[in-house]
């Protein structure tokens, strides 16, 4: 039943996603063009998706770079160092974090982060505050609980015997963490990061509110860029015809990105079970 639903859904998205090429006859290579000019009222339409694909990957990557040290560090602290009472507070706090709807993150970003970047970092080129960095920082906060809770599970799953053995050999606590706990949990932590990235790739609303949505290839953290999800939500209500088909193609590209991550998670999971 569930499998049938998933297959139907995938089939539908693929079917709608290829309409652009099959029905409207747009060459497949055109989606790799950097020019997005879908408006039939202007002269010459070009359905280049490169700005959106590059924007999605760029925003995701910076979000992961910012979020990973913070969340893995927090997970390590909770699993290895923190006293029990601190864990009892931190775990429900993380759960609450996950429950905050993305529109709230976006609204906070729009009212606090965007003006902050503009006022304090205007000299670095943040003329409006709406920027690649703003999108990545909002995403970094949103994926923090995801990465933290999955890495926490990975750290806790490291057998206590291994720690005891390490300490018995005369290592310090830090050496035990550095040379025993971290390598053992590495695959789990990698899985956590990829889970975070998957969530980041699919997030639309919060990013759209702070990113400025300019269809250009990302070149500067201070400049507005755009993402696949953001552009789909911007245009989906009003685009018709070939333009609408191009949005479905964006959806298909996003699906392929997610699938790549799912495969990566499976592959990392296999590595972990062997270890």
């Amino acid at each position, binding site marked *: 039943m569930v499998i049938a639903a998933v297959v139907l859904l995938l089939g539908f998205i693929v079917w709608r996603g290829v309409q652009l090429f099959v029905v409207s006859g747009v060459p497949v290579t055109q989606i790799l063009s950097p020019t997005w000019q879908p408006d039939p009222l202007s002269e010459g339409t070009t359905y280049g998706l490169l700005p959106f694909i590059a924007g999605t990957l760029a925003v995701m990557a910076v979000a992961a770079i910012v979020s990973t040290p913070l969340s893995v560090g927090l997970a390590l602290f909770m699993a290895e160092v923190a006293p029990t009472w601190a864990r*009892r507070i931190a775990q*429900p706090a993380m759960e609450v974090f996950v429950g905050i709807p993305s529109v709230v993150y976006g609204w906070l970003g729009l009212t606090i982060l965007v003006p902050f970047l503009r006022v304090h970092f205007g000299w670095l080129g943040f003329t409006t505050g709406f920027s690649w960095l703003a999108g990545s920082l909002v995403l970094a906060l949103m994926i923090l609980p995801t990465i933290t809770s999955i890495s926490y599970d990975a750290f806790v799953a490291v057998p206590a015997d291994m720690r005891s053995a390490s300490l018995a050999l005369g290592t310090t606590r830090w050496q035990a963490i550095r040379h025993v706990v971290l390598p053992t949990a590495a695959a789990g932590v990698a899985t956590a990061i990829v889970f975070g990235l998957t969530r980041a790739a699919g997030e639309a609303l919060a990013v759209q509110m702070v990113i400025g949505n300019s269809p250009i290839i990302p070149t500067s953290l201070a400049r507005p860029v755009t993402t696949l999800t953001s552009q789909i939500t*911007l245009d989906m209500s009003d685009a018709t015809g070939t333009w609408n088909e191009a949005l479905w193609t964006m959806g298909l590209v996003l699906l392929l990105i997610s699938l790549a991550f799912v495969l990566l998670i499976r592959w990392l999971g296999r590595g972990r079970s062997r270890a």
Partner: protein
Amino acid sequence: MITTSAKRIGALAIAATVLVAACGGSSSSPAASAASAASAASAAAATSAPSAAAAASGAAPSGVAGPATCVDGSITTSGSTALQPLIDAAGKAYTAACPKSTISVQGGGSGTGLTQVLQGAVQIGDSDVTAESKLQASDASQLVDHVTTKQGWVVVTNTGVAGVTSLTSQQLQDMWACPSGQSAPKITNWKDVGGPDLPIVLILRPASSGTRATFKQVVLNGQTECSGQALTEDSNGAVTAAVSQTPGSISVIGFAYYQANKDKVAAISLDGVAGSVANMASGTYKLAAQGHMYTKGQPTGLTKSFLDYMMSDPIQKTLIPSLFYAPVQ
């Protein structure tokens, strides 16, 4: 970690509270009913949707007379979010007088409305632009156009742009459009149009929006916007928020949204004509467009009765001006 079930429930309760608070704070849909308009008005930090203004001015159904004759039944309209507050208020006035009828008014955007009415999913598709500009000719010819109102847009700037109160179409073209082969417009600083030494920040609507299509056609003479340097925000509310907080920004918002946010953004006259309902009705203010309600074939039953009601005096003379649209009768 072992968590007792009591603590889990506690965490859930906190999460639920956060969720409820979040939903309350983000209620800014233009279609908000009178009940939720109160909560939109209370969210003072947010930009106010026109529904708040509508509620304040005693909008339908209380002040507006119902239709002359009732037709029972149930219909759905969808489409333009710019027209939605008006059609929603008219629908409420109709069903208040005719309790046996149901008129469901949904948004979704002009493209959605046109597509859905063509598919027969809804009885009326609301659009800011003509069906011919959105659909293939063979599809558009199946739809019947009912022009029930006129809507206008105001060019607005951040309140920090002092000294600029009026711009000509030529100046706006030089600010918005990319000359062929160029990646930047001719005018990029406010000092070139009599304002302070401040870079101009363009805030566009998505290319598919009716607002942008109208502006492009009426003001830009069809020239392409310089979207590479500009920000894009997808709704009147998001545009208003961005303009109010970004120095040097300029954009275009609907009349009703401007009226609800007069203190947050500054209005610019277009070719010396102020954007007002009176100027739009008389035809001297040109940044305006017809509001279309499309049916598939000629309307019958409740659909026809509701469209007739849209053209009647209670709507054209009372409701439409009160919501900052212009009558067509």
